[in-house]
């Protein structure tokens, strides 16, 4: 189990500029949907974007704090 705030902190440690929205899918604090929006994704392949986010969560995935994380990535929409 991990709190939404701690999960966001893990991602932001890797990507300080990112906007991170997290939804706890089941209320059990181990199945999450993680939306990450960042300028850095611009020009990155979808695979690399996801590797970056996965990378920031690896420790919490391996020690079981996170059971499943559905990741969605996006770049800030140009106004």
């Amino acid at each position: 189990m991990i709190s939404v705030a701690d999960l966001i902190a893990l991602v932001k440690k890797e990507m300080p500029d990112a906007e991170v929205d997290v939804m706890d899918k089941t209320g059990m604090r181990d199945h999450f949907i993680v939306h990450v929006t960042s300028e850095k994704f611009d020009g990155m392949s979808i695979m690399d974007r996801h590797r970056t986010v996965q990378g920031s969560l690896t420790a919490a995935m391996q020690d079981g704090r996170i059971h499943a994380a559905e990741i969605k990535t996006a770049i800030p929409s140009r106004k």
Partner: protein
Amino acid sequence: MSAIENEIKEEIKKHKILIYGKGTKTAPQCGFTVETIQFFQKYGHPFEVINVLNNMEKRETLNKLTNWPTLPKVFIDGKFYGDTDILDEMEAKGEIEPLLSAAFGGNK
């Protein structure tokens, strides 16, 4: 290279669309594996599901080969593409159609 790595390399070469997942095509054991099967059923190309649910050694080898911690793991035309999180975003950007027609020698 270990026997398991050889086995994986052969499987990846043999199937243009290959899903390593939990359960089989007709009896998937995990929601994400179901989602991945449904994803490819839309396109109508043949695909294979290889059940690694109880094969921890193969799962560890796959994790190392792909540097990707979770299942399912999708390979298209021998290349690793993660799971439906990635495939959905690629689809939204129109990247799946050309990829599959290239893999199956699409009649452009």
